[in-house]
């Protein structure tokens, strides 16, 4: 069978630094070909080369066996290649339908909104996104935006769809929807290139797996013929700590006490506590209001009523800078819009908060003494504090933001989707790190859509549904089924809804 799209012996360097070397890759009709590798291994770079965003320094691309050159995304699209980007590429001011069909509006100069909405509808349905196609994308949660991206790739009617971490901000239900979409597509003979750090997904979907390490092609194997452990060792070339199990932790005093937190139309009457040394997770479906609750606690948005006490003291006028000074840390869900200062070096991004706290001065030696050990510990690649953060891979950017708060220190950490886009090895590191923080007495309030992660880390799980806390589960009570049941409202009585109000 000739491959739909193939790359041979690709080499790509950025200003002299080699990122890909001798990489070959192909995708055949009806197959899902997964690409695996640590953060910074070169996955996104390879995909961008396949999509014409980057031009390889050497090597050839073939479509249906014919040699091609892509000078830009437009060329790739003309050859039936579509891509879902790791960092969302949507126009916030345009509607959902306009985004889905951007560049595909049809013949003639006119824009027919009704027609656009009607045409977008089936793609939105396919991915299971129930939003009004007329809504501006700006108002959607990041998960919903991710679904719009997927719908957009569908609308292109492409023969090859490249998906760069499409699930990194999705929760269970949406991921299931995506599986469905992918299976329909492959049944039609579409080829899928799939990048994910989740082995569940790879196992559920992939036919073949290609592993990259440090820009080198390590192996291409039949997914069913290898085990998870084998893949991991190909990826990282070392052993990683196991991801499971953690004994209940000893808890300190109540650190965070939230009562009746309400933002009209978004979440209502949210009440909970987090103790020192405890990790509490807000779980729920996308759009259930978890992110907004977290932001409200931090004082990031206005229009919130209810009380927040920190160590018994009321925080009346909350704003990020006041809370930071009180020892609260915050990691936002949307890394690019709210996390990084893209054109600044890693060191600035990492030290921003420490400077404000007066923990670190601006001196080169002083900052290196803080930055380098942290980068080492979190395995940030490349380990160069002066690198512009935009040029780091997505996962590495996430690590830098985490390091920001490790450097600054905090007694309460609010963290939204902590492991978004982080590879297995680093995830293990990160879990260990959060455990360690908790052991030091830091209170952690986390939002996570990844159930195994929720179960692995949380001392308690608060499940949100439609802007309200639908139930609370202790570490012993928590299971994927019960969380889901609470989140969807199925069988609410049977799953301890009564525990929710205290």
């Amino acid at each position: 069978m000739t491959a739909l799209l193939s790359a041979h012996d690709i080499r790509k360097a950025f200003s002299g630094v080699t990122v890909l070397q001798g990489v070959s890759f192909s995708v055949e009709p009806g197959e899902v070909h997964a690409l695996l590798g640590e953060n910074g291994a070169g996955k996104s770079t390879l995909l961008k080369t396949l999509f014409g965003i980057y031009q390889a320094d050497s090597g050839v691309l073939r479509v249906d066996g014919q040699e091609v050159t892509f000078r830009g995304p437009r060329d790739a699209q003309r050859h039936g290649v579509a891509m879902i980007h790791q960092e969302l590429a949507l126009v916030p001011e345009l509607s959902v339908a306009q985004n889905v069909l951007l560049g595909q509006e049809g013949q003639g100069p006119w824009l027919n909104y009704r027609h656009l909405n009607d045409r977008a509808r089936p793609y939105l349905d396919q991915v299971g996104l129930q939003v009004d196609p007329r809504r501006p994308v700006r108002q959607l949660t990041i998960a919903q935006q991710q679904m719009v991206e997927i719908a957009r790739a569908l609308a292109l009617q492409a023969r090859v769809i490249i998906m760069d971490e499409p699930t990194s901000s999705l929760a269970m239900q949406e991921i299931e929807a995506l599986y469905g979409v992918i299976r329909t597509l492959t049944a039609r003979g579409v080829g899928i290139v799939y990048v994910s750090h989740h082995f569940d997904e790879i196992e559920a979907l992939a036919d073949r797996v290609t592993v990259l390490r440090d820009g080198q092609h390590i192996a291409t194997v039949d997914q069913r013929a290898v085990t998870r452990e084998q893949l991991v060792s190909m990826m990282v070339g070392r052993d990683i700590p196991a991801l499971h199990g953690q004994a209940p932790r000893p808890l300190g005093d109540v650190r965070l006490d939230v009562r009746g937190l309400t933002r009209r139309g978004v979440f209502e009457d949210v009440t909970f506590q987090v103790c020192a040394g405890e990790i509490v997770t807000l779980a729920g479906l996308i759009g259930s209001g978890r992110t907004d609750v977290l932001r409200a606690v931090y004082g990031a948005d206005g229009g919130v009523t209810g009380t927040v006490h920190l160590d018994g003291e009321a925080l009346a006028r909350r704003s990020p800078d006041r809370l930071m000074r009180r020892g609260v840390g915050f990691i936002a869900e949307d890394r690019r819009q709210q996390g990084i200062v893209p054109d600044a070096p890693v060191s600035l991004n990492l030290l921003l908060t420490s400077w404000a706290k007066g923990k670190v001065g601006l001196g080169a030696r002083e900052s290196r003494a803080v930055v380098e050990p942290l980068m080492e510990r979190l395995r940030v690649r490349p380990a160069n504090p002066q690198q512009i953060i935009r040029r780091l891979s997505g996962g590495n950017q996430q690590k830098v933001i985490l390091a920001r708060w490790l450097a600054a220190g905090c007694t309460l950490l609010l963290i939204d989707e902590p492991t978004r886009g982080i590879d297995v090895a680093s995830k293990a590191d990160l879990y260990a790190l959060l455990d360690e923080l908790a052991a030091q007495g830091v209170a952690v309030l986390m939002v996570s859509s990844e159930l195994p992660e929720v179960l692995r880390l949380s001392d308690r799980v608060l499940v949100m549904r439609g802007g309200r806390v639908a139930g609370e589960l202790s570490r012993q009570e928590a299971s994927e089924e019960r969380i889901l049941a609470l989140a969807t409202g199925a069988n609410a009585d049977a799953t301890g809804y009564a525990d929710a109000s205290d």
Partner: protein
Amino acid sequence: MQQVTQMQATKRPNVLQQVREAGILAVLLLGALIFSFTVPSFFTVDNVISGIGLSAAINTVVAIGLTYVIITGGIDLSVGSVAALAAVIGADLMQRGTPALLAVLIALAVGALAGLINGLLVTRVKLAPFIVTLGTMTFYRGLALSYTNGQPILSMPDGFKQALGGTVAGLPMPLVIAVLLVILGSLLLRYTKTGQYILAIGGNAEAVRLSGINVSRYTTLTYVISGVMAAVAALVLVAQLGAAEPILGNGWELNAIAAAVVGGASLSGGKGNIVGALLGALLLSMLQNVLTLLNVQAFYQMLATGLIIIGAMVIDRYTRGE
């Protein structure tokens, strides 16, 4: 329950949006209401139409073009100079006996060409729009001045003056032209692919590029539109004043940017609407009109203008309730 929140969320933006767009309109109406009672001879058909409306017409036309540029996140400082260049070339041709229609078309072409040069420097040579149009502002003005040797060109043909500066059905032509262009401009922005791409480029140029759309082409187009609009404004003004001066259009850029921004355009791009530009221009003209009617002394006019611009924006902001 989830369904409910989503439906609420769906509805809210529409209502909000209406109020939002109405913000500046509210300011305008509020002002008009207050002045009607306090300023004698303010609220007469004549004053409103040919006093405020007519003097807003030129600024509106220029602001339409600038709104497009601003939406993409650019800026065009050269509009006044482009206007002067188009005006003197068009007027000179008419004076030499070229048929008025042909001269008008050539003047528009001059505007388009000047805009095209701006656009290409921005998109192909990838220079900052501010610096490009600062340079061409000086350059085009120099061209207009050396073309005429600094002299005004007088005595335009009557047909031309009538056509662009006269009245139809009792309404002054400049106002009619401005309103027509506002309608056209709005339609282009809201109901064509081109308009959508321009909005999208301002919102996230990278995303648009990744969708396989030629971002450079559409960005360049906005500068061409801006140049053509400046030329239209220039021709209308020449028809009204009966003379084309090489120093015409001095300071237009600031007035037009002000109108566009007051009307809701954001200089960081992605936002802007043509009706807003009209409202902004009307607001500024109304202000001028009232100060003149009240015979406010020069220095105090400046104080009042500054205060009212800011005051209007504050009211606008709180009406929008963001």
